[in-house]
């Protein structure tokens, strides 16, 4: 479990990083938190000729930029920084540093707390997790649900890829050779909305057998205007399902929403769970997350 030899570049600026990436194209891999890449190297499942270590680019990439519409998460922001700011649990995130932090959308913070374990969250990056595009990972589902996007920079310029186009397949994103994912943007939820993240994993911190990020928005009368959910571990990419038909208006039926979601996912068997069990969990978790999200939406609407 030692990696084959590789070249190592540690650029001092994003521009320098992009020029190295341009030079090596598909032979280069970007090293940020390394929580997925290093094991892949050690198991010789990946053998890039060159690693481009972006950890010296903190001035440009270790930033959270926020405005009223969205939070932009730079490529060197570690999971822990987002997980620490947890609006729903005010006992955490009281430090001076946190007080100065951007306000993180509740769903992003809640989902980030499900990412692996504290030591991994201290090192792994949010953008890195998105680029890794594991369909069992939490953050791709969140990005998809909230309609976020990823900024991909190269020597030719920067393009912004919306989430629904970014996750191409299992462990495959739209990132092209020569590109560096410099940031991801998570739009804030609309007013009068609530969200919830739920998952079932074998052990605390494991990849989810099934997980769901769910958001409910209310209309001016306090009725459900829309409900959408993104599921993880039920297909080659995160799966977005519009549940509105099942729960709109005054007839909120989360069981029905669960059945709707079950009809739109295609989970696989693996050694940890059967496809049938995963499909069952999609129903259960839809109801559990839906009830919480709805309650939060009503709370946000002053309608609890």
């Amino acid at each position: 479990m030692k990696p084959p030899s590789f070249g190592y570049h540690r650029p001092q600026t994003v521009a320098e990083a992009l020029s190295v990436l341009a030079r090596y194209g598909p032979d280069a891999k970007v090293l940020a938190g390394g929580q997925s890449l290093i094991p892949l190297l050690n198991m010789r499942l990946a053998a890039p000729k060159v690693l481009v270590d972006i950890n010296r680019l903190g001035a440009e990439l270790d930033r959270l930029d926020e405005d009223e519409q969205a939070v932009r998460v730079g490529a060197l922001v570690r999971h822990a920084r987002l997980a620490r700011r947890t609006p729903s649990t005010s006992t955490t995130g009281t430090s001076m540093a946190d007080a100065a932090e951007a306000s993180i959308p509740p769903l992003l913070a809640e989902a980030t707390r499900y990412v692996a374990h504290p030591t991994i969250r201290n090192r792994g990056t949010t953008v890195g997790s998105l680029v890794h595009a594991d369909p069992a990972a939490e953050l791709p589902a969140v990005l998809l649900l909230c309609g976020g996007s990823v900024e991909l920079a190269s020597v030719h310029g920067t393009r912004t890829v919306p989430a629904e186009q970014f996750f191409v397949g299992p462990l495959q994103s739209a990132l092209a050779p020569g590109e560096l994912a410099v940031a991801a943007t998570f739009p804030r939820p609309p007013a009068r909305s609530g969200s919830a993240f739920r998952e079932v994993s074998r052990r605390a911190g494991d990849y989810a057998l099934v997980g769901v990020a769910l958001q409910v928005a209310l209309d001016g009368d306090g009725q459900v205007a829309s409900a959408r959910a993104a599921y993880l571990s039920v297909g080659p990419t995160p799966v977005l399902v519009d549940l509105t038909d099942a729960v709109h208006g005054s007839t909120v039926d989360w069981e029905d929403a669960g059945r709707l979601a079950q009809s739109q996912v295609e989970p696989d068997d693996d050694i940890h769970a059967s496809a049938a069990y995963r499909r069952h969990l999609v129903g259960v978790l839809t109801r559990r997350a839906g009830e919480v999200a709805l309650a939060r939406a009503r709370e946000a609407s002053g309608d609890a």
Partner: protein
Amino acid sequence: MTVAPVRPAESDAPAVAEPTVAPGPFGAPILRKEDRRLAAGEGRYLDDLGHEALAAAFLRSPHAHARIVDIDIDAALDVEGVVAIYTYEDLDGRVAEPLPLLIPHPALHAPRTAYPLAKDVVRHVGEPVAMVVATDRYTAEDAVSLIRVEWEPLPAVIGIDAAVAAEHAVHPDVPDNVAAHLVQEVGDAQAAIAAAPRSLTLDLHVERSASTPLEGKGVYARWDADDRSLRVYTSTQTSTSVRFALAAKLSLPVDRVEVVTPDVGGGFGVKIVHPWPEEVLVPWAAIRLRREVKWVEDRREHFISSAHERAQKHTVRVGFDDEGRILGLDVRFWHDNGAYTPYGIIVPIITSTQLLGPYKVGAYRVEFHSLYTNTVMVTPYRGAGRVHACFVMERVMDAVADHCGLDRAQVRLTNMIRPEEMPYDQGLIFQDGRPLIYDTGDFPRSLRAALDLVDWEGFAAVRAQAQAEGRRVGIGLATYVEGTGVGPYEGAYVRVETTGDVVVATGLTTQGQGHATVFAQIAAQELGVPVDRVTVTTGDTRRFKYGVGTFASRAAVMSGNAVALAARKVRAKALRIAAAALAADESELTIVDGVVSVRGFPDGPSIPLATVAVLANPLRYAFDEEAKRATQFAVPATDGPPVPEGEEPGLEATAWYSPVRSTFANGVHAAVVETDPETAEIRVLRYCVVHDCGTVINPMIVEGQVHGGVAQGVGGALYERIVYDESGQLVNASFMDFLMPYASEVPTVEIDHVTSPSPLNPLGVKGVGEAGVIPGHAVLAAAIEDAEGIRIDRMPISPAELFDLRRRLAAGEDIGLRRRSRGEGPS
């Protein structure tokens, strides 16, 4: 609750040591002496040694079963930094022979062991095929990746069913795949079952798992060509036997081989096997190359090339009466021993002989077949056959209770051996070839203590409360009896230094048990010195040459008693010398805090042990101030020789402990689980342990052993399984997919003690190392079954599998408990 010690009944037993007389470190919950060093990162594990050594890496078979047509190493040899590449063709002498069959047995009629490097055929994924030695591990792995092997794949035999079907053979000369077949019978079980008022048949299955110590194996060899001597560091559970094995394999005189075990990051059984292919090949290469060579196993290597355990299928017939009294038990089981049998058939022998636990079953018949498969070999893993045995017996108890509509605890009490029946001969031959005779134990008392601890009677209210909240809970019980402290022997060396410090050495090894503490407690108690003056060395053949190893919950029993006996010899000698120096009678002397004085006169004449140690070695040369006191002119002249006849210089002694047979510990676990009615997730709400390991040397260490065992038991029951696909690929060979429980999955363990000292050894101790893990499968299966009303006959169990059982029950399959169909409460 602590139950008062039960005095041993056998009068020919040696007296129990002094702790009841003089308060001392024996029996005290003192902190582990080794922990500060280990917790501070000052441990020295195998990979902390030999930074200048060459590194070895292995090409391992990617096939479960294949013929090697050709091996092309040319491209690999071109890698810069490669020093040597070896295949079977390069091996010579006894290294080219198959590895030893460590534990032969008459019932093992077709034993097979591997060659250090595969010869012609590989029989499991991971079998070593070629060895690369290079300047570093990176380079060695680069070269491994360039070795080209032409394979001719052969049909793979995977799993017990395929082995039994025997459409293909793992070894061509063993066409039925049966390595061993053994029957033991006490009474006529089949007749007893036929005549019994009631009978049941159960099929019970335990899946494959593995020890998975956090530190894998590792070997580092240094050959001194001038001295023609070899020193080998290896992460093993038996340095003494590795030494003899290497001397034999490498054709070296034993006194030219030293084997040292550094700190070991866990063993759990897998490191008792020896010599591993790498354990032979690394020293062999070091001698051949006249260079230091080191190999450190990585995680994937450990999964695919060390050893596994647990996989067994059992079919049980039981006959019983209306009170749930068992009248006959007939157990047939099939044991998957993997591709080779170097460790013999210890695991199925233990299952077959320890299955009865604390019960009398009337007549008992047990028959097993041990089967070859194209998978990693099977050798003991903590619990070693008892996990399966306990699962089988306790599932039988629950099934009988369910069948009769009786309380599960009552059925167990009905069948238990009574304390007045001790010693109790089960009529079987145990793993040490000796009769299986329980020495002491009060099984009903252990059970009642567990029922109190978990509040068995009060659980109906807990269940009702949970049901009212829409939750689902269940409770389970499991008992066990564990044969511990198997022979043949261990020894110990104790020396008092001229500083007054005490040095203890014993041959067996340490992989986390706390030997540096408990053996120090024993020596300190016997010698009357503070425990912090005692230093213990284990697993270093330079310090102690003879011994057996650390396995089978035997270290405290075997080496513990040897340390006590050696310390007693040292004490006696110290008192003889002190008596002469103080002009007192030995019988009047005592040792307190390292000073010998007349009992009852602490301010009277006295002499420190340090001085006694000086006097014990008459000197010609005064090399320091202390030594002056022992020179020929300083010692009061006597007519006799300076070293009296029958004495030896030095305040030191070696002693041996060799028991006639094993001593038997026992215990009862009780668990409360909650199963999510929707997601089928399983959570352990309470885990209660009552255990009896005889006299306790250090209760904190005993509880730590129990805690660790329970963690492994919960892991084995709910998370860990080794999964092979049909082609023999191990599909979860990483800690990402082989799910060991984290702290977040391990319940708080509630412990209570019962103490039944063993009459078989001077200290009255029994082993505890494996106790915590044994009932894990059984107790959690029982609790889940109780929560769900569905029979649990296969472990481990995952939420997905529980979900599947629920669907099958809902679909009308006959897998529910009888008490559910009778409308009785689940308990």
